[in-house]
């Protein structure tokens, strides 16, 4: 459980951090909370030559409302998300999801930016951000750019971030009225990765679905949106039949693999069950 030798850098500015990324290229890894990276290094699955610790960089740790968006700095800890009245007030899904991330020690260190930048479909925020239709801000040598969440996850542990870019912010739209959100993951025990997880954000118009976002956790190699389920539910009332059909579509569309958590069939079935329950819960919260 000891990493191979590496060089540690702790720049004080974003510019310096980007400069180091330019200098060391793909030999370098960004260290934020470290709760995905360091275990991989200790097991020697990850062997970066350089660690660039961005924790000393100011300005990446706030949660603020601005121009119809909530802007979350990349270094905001999971524990801060969990207890942010601004976030959980607009979106109870943040209380649902952060509570299920690992354990309090990990949440005190782990960051929301790291959770996304790791590009791991087993992490919880990718599904939540897909459901929220969030935007990700990446900062590199040429300045900042905004990436729609649907363009962010590109493959297995692969994101749209360029090697010289750092994820600096996440932007979430302020919801219209009658919006509800919910997240749940089935797990074998506390702190485990999901057997299957579903994030739902929806807005109701009377009893009809006006808009909906559904993200799935750990049932696909890449974090995925349950697009057909969303399309199917749009404009419809949330009857048991419609919920069952939406669940069925997501179960068909995801691509889980059999492992110690259960068979592929079990996981597909769980996607359908949890999706139904989360849409229902989100709808209750929307009223």
């Amino acid at each position, binding site marked *: *459980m*000891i990493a*191979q*030798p590496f060089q540690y850098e702790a720049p004080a500015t974003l510019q310096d951090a980007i400069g180091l990324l330019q200098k060391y290229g793909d030999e370098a890894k960004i260290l934020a909370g470290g709760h995905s990276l360091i275990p991989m290094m200790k*097991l*020697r699955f990850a062997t970066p030559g350089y660690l660039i610790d961005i924790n000393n960089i100011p300005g990446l740790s706030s949660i603020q409302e601005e121009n119809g968006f909530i802007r979350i700095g990349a270094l905001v800890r999971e524990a801060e998300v969990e207890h942010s009245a601004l976030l959980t007030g607009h979106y109870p899904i943040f209380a649902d999801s952060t509570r299920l991330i690992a354990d309090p020690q990990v949440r005190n260190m782990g960051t929301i930016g790291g959770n996304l930048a790791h590009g791991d479909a087993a992490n919880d925020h990718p599904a939540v951000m897909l459901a929220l239709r969030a935007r990700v801000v990446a900062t590199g040598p040429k300045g900042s750019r905004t990436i729609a969440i649907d363009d962010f996850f590109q493959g297995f542990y692969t994101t749209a971030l360029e090697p010289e870019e750092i994820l600096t912010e996440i932007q979430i739209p302020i919801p219209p009225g009658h919006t509800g959100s919910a997240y749940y993951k*089935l797990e*074998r*025990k*506390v*702190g*485990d*990765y999901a*057997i299957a997880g579903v994030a739902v954000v929806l807005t109701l118009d009377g009893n009809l679905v006006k808009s909906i976002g559904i993200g799935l956790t750990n049932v696909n190699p890449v974090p995925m949106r349950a697009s057909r389920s969303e399309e199917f539910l749009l404009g419809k009332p949330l009857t048991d039949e419609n919920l069952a059909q939406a669940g069925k579509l997501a179960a068909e569309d995801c691509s889980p693999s059999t492992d*110690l*958590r*259960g*068979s592929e069939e*079990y996981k597909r*079935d*769980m996607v359908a*069950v*949890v999706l139904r329950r989360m849409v229902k819960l989100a709808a209750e919260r929307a009223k």
Partner: protein
Amino acid sequence: MIQCKTSKAIGGMGHSLKRKEDVRFIQGAGHYVDDIKLDGMLYMDIVRSPYAYAKIKNIDISEAMKVPGVAAVVTGKDLEKYNLHWMPTLMSDTQMVLPTDTVMYQAQEVAAVIATSRYAARDGREAVKVEYEPMKPIMDPYKSMDPSSPVLRTDKPGKSDNHIWHWEVGDKAKTDEVFKKAEVVVEQHMHIPRIHVASIETCGCVADYDKINNHLTMYMTTQAPHAIRTVIALVAGHVGLTEEKIRVVSPDIGGGFGGKVPVYPGYVIAIAVSFLTGKPVKWIEDRSENLQADSFARDYHITVEMAGTKAGKIQATRFKVLADHGYTDASANPSKFHTGLFSIGTGSYDYDTAFMEADAVYTNKPPGGVAYRCSFRVTEAVQAIERITDLFALKVGKDPAQLRMENFIKKEDFPWKSPTGWTYDSGDYHAGLKKAMEAIGYDSLRKEQAEKRAKGELMGIGISTFTEIVGAGPSKDFDILGIKMFDSAEIRVHPTGKAIARFGTKSQGQGHETTYAQIIAEELGIPAENIHVEEGDTDTAPYGLGTYASRSTPTAGAAAAVAARKLRDKARKIAAYLLEVSEEDLEWEPGKFSVKGAPEKAKTIQEIVFAAYTNHPQGMEAGFEATHYYDPPNLTFPSGAYICVVDIDKETGQIKVRRFVAIDDCGHIINPMIVQGQVHGGLTQGIAPAMYEELIYDEDGNILNGTFMDYLVPTAVESPHWETGHVVTPSPHHPIGAKGVGESPTVGAPPAIANAIMDALSPYGIHHIDIPITPFKVWKALKEKGVI
């Protein structure tokens, strides 16, 4: 309510004294083996096999030797020069320390890297290049038993199969006869999964050989320091390390649970390297090594049958076991007990016919197995009997509580002779189950269950009424490597009336520093806070076989009481001398002797002890010290009645343990708070195999869950609110009537949970799922029955 004979100031038995050891533990001042740092100390890391079965073609250490700080790389060939490449196991099997040509399981030690820092040792390990020729491993014990299977232990001359031993007990002919004639027979096959103790502190040592004085000090995480000293002397005596030149020190231990009884190769390599270099060598396992290579527990495949009448009277049981020991039989059992105390498996029920047999077999898995908080294979036995009792109740159409009540051994029938030869000392099983049923509200739960079932909801109630067997053990039957399983206490009371007491056992969190002091306080009236308890240093403590199998209180605790009574006898003599009366005229109350009829004429124990050093009677030995080696006349038989309620989410298979009531009978209780803590911890380690833990291998011998990411140790979140209580039937043969409690909950909880889950699923014709019962397994069973 527990009646205390001593005042709170004395703090004898029955007082919930706060644990003395916690003063240092909660302030981070515990002293564990990894806290030991010696001048010039070297660090060791171990290269381990990625294959379960392979020939070693070559080990190239050249790159490793170039890593800065690496001092040496030790291989099996190096140890072979000193004939240290093999060692005996506690069960008189043999085990490689380091291989010379073949590896037999994944994560087996292949070479050791010695360096000047822990980090350099790890980098050196990465640089050792081993060339293997993989072979097809045997992972299935049934396949291993097949005569056509290749022989794994080719190191054993003449070995022609993979069979280790056959064991049986009971009357086969009579049992077969009862089964043939029985009105009702039920049978169930089950696997008790291979699990790991997963103590928070891993294993490790600092071997410190002093070349000039030819003396070895071995600091190590061991539950049995004296036995280890003897084992080291047996293994290394031929190179000059005889027993008087060895000191084993077991510092604070962060959990043992049986996993720190065996001798692991790492210890031997560290000793060998220290012996050759004259420098201290530290070896501390990391988490994965601990989980993947150290002794496992359980791994019994059991077919259990019960015969009885249609009216629900149990008449006989039959057990057939296949024990998967992995590469070598490295069990930590008493020598004559291949299956440990599995023969307690006839249970808490009054019948006189049983037959049990077991075969052990080699496979390409890590060796073992240890008695993980279960007093030698009792968990396996209790799981079998308590599951089959439920299946029998189901078959005859009786409520499982009612059926148990009707079959229990009656309290007036103790001492009771079991069909496999044990003499149960005492118990009141009816009272225990009654108390548990009242505590949980059994009847109203059954009503609630009927209502839920009508609505298609899954709720289950599970019972386990187990009998444990602990305190090994009487010298006529019990030994380890020939050493009888007594244990010891030595009490030295200083002139001012304060004492130090030393024991042959070794606490790993059990609270010995407090409970032993309370036993002595009870007997001598010296306040427990004035009694310093010390264990774990073979240079100072009296010889004993250590702490495991819930044996500390039954053996060393008894030794403490008997040694204290020897001192009380001496105190009486001194008091008589001081008070100028005859001994018969004296009356004892905790802390003082007084003259009958004249209570103002008295001497306190402190005054008496002072006199033992300053004014002792002529002809009497001065001083106030006593030692006792306690050889128990019988084992003790704690028991318990556990009831568990579960709710199951039908769609997802998720299981919620809603309530869990545990009524234990551990005889007289020394410290109620410590007992409750033991029960809480044990119950949590009971839900572990029932619902979460199992070491899983693929057919190529790869472990699939060799880290805590996938080896699921339950936490506070998974634990229900434990509801505990007691029935007290003192052990009649134990000096203080205590029976031991450390393992009861680990033994009793799994079948209660399994029975509850199966009770919930029973309406759908699902009557058995092997533990651990996971949501996926429940979902699968419901799916197969077309329920969902």
